[in-house]
């Protein structure tokens, strides 16, 4: 590439001009004749239903897609037998219809080109786009080796592409779900209990007596079965304790809301440990039988009294003592929830360790109402030749972080920036199912990497921000239009679910399994894709598992009995934890040997300077990441984010609800777009809050473009977790601008 690389292309008219706009969104379902129908015929429309599992988020709830006689998708309803949703989808799953109907979808393959000096996209045939990808990939393989081809992925399409990459010899694979999301808790819990938390989390919420949420906002994150179980727990009279500087929805349902000063959670947890140990409230039998390092822990937390924590957290000592006793009273039916998006301040693995240790002291791991032992049904591998052994991959790229258990996206990007000491040069990148401009912070790094890369492919259903940086864009069909891998997830009982197309792919979009096979064949690894249709793969797998596609199409979900033993520790036996010592490790020799604190410590984190506020962000219940912002149904529920501002701050800055403002962070990064203020008591005076996933740059998103602010854009200061490479994002501070800083510049 010769031009100044990767100028962001706002998927231009040139590429998509040929597609006629559908009728106005208002009439998307045509004239409403339902009431007339009802009045005249007293019958309802006939629907056909097709089994699927949802892809709007990662929870993967099994569902039924309802199509009418005209073959239009009308609604999606949860599968009653599915332990992920119990027949009730969340708003995003219910609104999945909009993902299919969205008229802004990517419609054809696109190739970057230059017209009159302007970089733009042109429409291309699949043949041409795939040939180009194969020839560029081949070039990288021949010059640098297959390892220099990297994949950043998310969700179901990722699995097909992972297979492709491993087939041609690359293990340079990463996903934001690790280092930008739940990585620290997996490492922290693994260092304590020997096993990952995993997804869905094996939290026995429905049977718990006490649920402790630390910055986890169940109810705003719609992790379906957990939301349902939290509701059951409320019905059962469970006590909820929420630690959050913001009155989250969960906090409002809590008996105890601890309105903590941001970035001080570890101090609170250390003082809880102090109370639990000093007052002898811990599970003595469990600790004696199963733990390692209790004496060291006791000595370590002796100094961390509630009075000490009060000065740091602003939580009153009596409140700390009271909540510690409530937890201990409920134990072992207590859950200190590990959370999900936990990359906050860079000491996140240690915070997760503190949570794990509290669970260990209260004896809740492996106990009813605490954490159950999950089980999964293994799906047999469709036969293919053995994968090659790459010379290096995600592990080597992230070798600075000894306990990273998956690829670190930000390190993969860093490996793309030319540097003489870089032993692992990444030359081309494929991005699938994740909008990395909003899922990975540090825009400077991202742009430098994208600029340096020889070739970038983006696969998505929508023209997202990242699409604009691609050399080739491939339009993926939605989950409602394709066969896909079998969903087998960990739960109380193992279950599987299938995804069957309810309708053929709209426009010229294709499933990713097909793209993977096409690229694989062009790269000479066709023997890894020994099928014409992915349906054959699932048919074979289901048969091996003692069922059939025919049966699964009728039932959607199949539940299997447990085989791994009881869900909880059998009190009469001695359970061996899968750690090195076989015990719950309060004191971690592994961390110590690697040069890290063997037990968590409180670290002081920077606070916002005068005139700045900590930027906090979180989920909207009706949106997933940034991917649903343009979905007509979900956009209708929430089309922009707001800046939550405490009334005290609003008074000082003379801000009113609904007022348009811009934000600038500590590094002088100014938000591209504006956001409307929402004055509310629900946030502290030292921070502001917004929903994540808005402020889209791509003008082709007709509903989402320019609506609200992209929080990730303002996250330029990253606190990296030295243990596993997570990118802490909660240490950015913003100042509020009431005048448009872009008045004289064109966006």
């Amino acid at each position, binding site marked *: 590439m010769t031009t100044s690389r990767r100028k962001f292309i706002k998927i231009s008219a040139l590429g998509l001009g040929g597609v006629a706009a559908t009728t106005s969104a208002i009439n998307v379902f045509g004239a409403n004749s339902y009431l007339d129908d009802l*009045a005249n015929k007293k019958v309802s429309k006939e629907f056909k239903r097709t089994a699927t599992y949802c892809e709007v988020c990662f929870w993967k709830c099994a569902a039924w897609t309802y199509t009418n006689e005209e073959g239009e998708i009308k609604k999606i309803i949860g599968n009653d037998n599915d332990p992920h949703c119990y027949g009730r989808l969340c708003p995003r799953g*219910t609104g999945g219809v909009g993902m299919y109907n969205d008229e802004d979808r990517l419609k054809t393959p696109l190739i970057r080109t230059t017209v009159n000096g302007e970089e733009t996209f042109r429409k291309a045939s699949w043949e041409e786009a795939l040939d180009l990808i194969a020839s560029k990939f081949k070039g990288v393989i021949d010059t640098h080796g297959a390892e220099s081809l990297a994949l950043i992925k998310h969700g179901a399409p990722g699995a097909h592409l992972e297979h492709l990459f491993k087939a041609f010899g690359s293990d340079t694979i990463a996903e934001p779900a690790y280092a930008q999301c739940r990585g620290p808790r997996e490492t922290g819990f693994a260092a304590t209990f020997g096993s990952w938390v995993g997804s869905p989390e094996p939290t026995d919420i429905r049977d718990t007596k006490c649920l402790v949420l630390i910055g986890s906002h169940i109810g705003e994150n719609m992790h379906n079965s957990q939301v349902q179980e939290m509701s059951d727990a409320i019905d059962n009279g469970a006590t909820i304790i929420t630690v959050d500087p913001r009155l989250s929805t969960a906090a409002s349902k809590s008996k105890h809301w601890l309105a903590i000063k941001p970035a001080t959670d570890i101090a609170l947890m250390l003082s809880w440990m102090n109370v639990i140990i000093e007052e002898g409230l811990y599970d003595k039998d469990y600790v004696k039988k199963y733990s390692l390092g209790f004496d060291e822990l006791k000595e370590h937390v002796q100094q961390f009294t509630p009075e000490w924590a009060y000065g740091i957290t602003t939580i009153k000592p009596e409140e700390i003592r009271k909540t510690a006793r409530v937890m201990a009273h409920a134990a072992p039916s207590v859950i200190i929830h590990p959370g999900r998006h936990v990359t906050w301040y860079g000491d996140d693995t240690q915070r997760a360790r503190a949570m794990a240790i509290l669970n260990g002291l209260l004896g809740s791991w492996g106990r009813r109402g605490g954490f159950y032992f999950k089980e999964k049904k293994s799906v047999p591998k469709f036969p293919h030749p053995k994968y090659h052994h790459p010379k290096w991959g995600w592990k080597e790229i992230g070798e600075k972080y000894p306990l990273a258990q998956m690829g670190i996206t930000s390190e993969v990007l860093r490996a793309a920036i030319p540097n003489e000491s870089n032993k692992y040069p990444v030359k081309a990148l494929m991005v699938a199912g994740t909008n990395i401009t909003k899922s990975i912070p540090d825009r400077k790094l991202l742009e430098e990497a994208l600029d340096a890369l020889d070739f970038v492919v983006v696969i998505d259903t929508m023209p997202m921000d990242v699409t604009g940086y691609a050399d080739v864009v491939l339009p993926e069909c939605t989950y409602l239009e394709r066969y896909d891998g079998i969903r087998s997830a960990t739960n109380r009982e193992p279950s599987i679910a299938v995804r069957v197309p309810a309708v053929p792919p709209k426009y010229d979009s294709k499933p990713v399994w097909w793209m993977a096979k096409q690229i694989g064949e062009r790269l000479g690894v066709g023997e890894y894709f020994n099928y014409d249709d992915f349906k054959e793969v699932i048919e074979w797998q289901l048969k091996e598992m003692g069922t059939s596609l025919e049966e699964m199409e009728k039932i959607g979900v199949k539940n299997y009995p447990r085989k791994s033993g009881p869900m909880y520790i059998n009190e009469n036996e001695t359970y061996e934890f899968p750690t090195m010592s076989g015990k719950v490790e309060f004191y971690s020799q592994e961390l110590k040997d690697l040069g890290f604190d063997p037990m968590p410590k409180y670290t002081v984190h920077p606070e916002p300077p005068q005139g700045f506020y900590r930027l906090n962000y979180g989920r909207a219940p009706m949106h997933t990441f940034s991917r649903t912002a343009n979905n007509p149904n979900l956009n209708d529920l929430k089309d922009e984010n707001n800046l939550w501002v405490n009334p005290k701050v609003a008074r000082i800055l003379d801000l009113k609800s609904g007022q348009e403002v811009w934000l600038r962070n500590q590094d002088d990064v100014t938000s591209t777009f504006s956001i409307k203020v929402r004055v509310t008591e629900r946030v502290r005076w030292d921070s502001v809050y917004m929903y994540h996933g808005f402020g889209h740059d791509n003008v082709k998103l007709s509903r989402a473009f320019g609506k609200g602010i992209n929080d990730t854009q303002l996250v330029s200061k990253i606190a990296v977790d030295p243990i596993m490479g997570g990118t802490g994002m909660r240490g950015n501070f913003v100042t509020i601008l009431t005048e448009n800083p872009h008045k004289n510049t064109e966006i």
Partner: protein
Amino acid sequence: MVIDTLKCVGCSDCVVACQTENDVPIGYCRDWITETVSGSYPNLELELKSERCNHCDNAPCVRCCPTGASHIVDGGIVMVTANECIGCGACIESCPYDARYQHPDGWVDKCTFCHHRLEKGQLPACVSVCPTKCMYFGDLDNPNSEVSQLLKNRKYKTLAPEAGTDPHVFYLT
């Protein structure tokens, strides 16, 4: 209908489920979420709830309808017959709950408690989808029904009682 505000998380699933079930055009809704915050940080109360037509016994919308399109059917559900509606909007003005909207095709639309589903023995779409199971639907005339029992055993309120409409959506508090 009985809605437990202690469980509702305000996720809007009821809104989108209603839209897809009833072909409600995008940009309109038959049910919606309200959020009420009281107190000051950190002594706060937050109430989230799903609102809709209250299917009042003493329904001002039915009284003011000039054509009889708005009417109460057996069981107490307030309905609108689309082809009798002239779209004059009197009902929209009269409703203290702001539960009605003018459909782009001219007539006035609102919640029917999913009458077409009830006929088949199914619950309204909002009730059957709610991930918190905070909504209950049933026969208030039957003292043993789940809804009657909830109202017997729990504290509850109705909206705008001062309007004297005798509403049939109850909120557990």
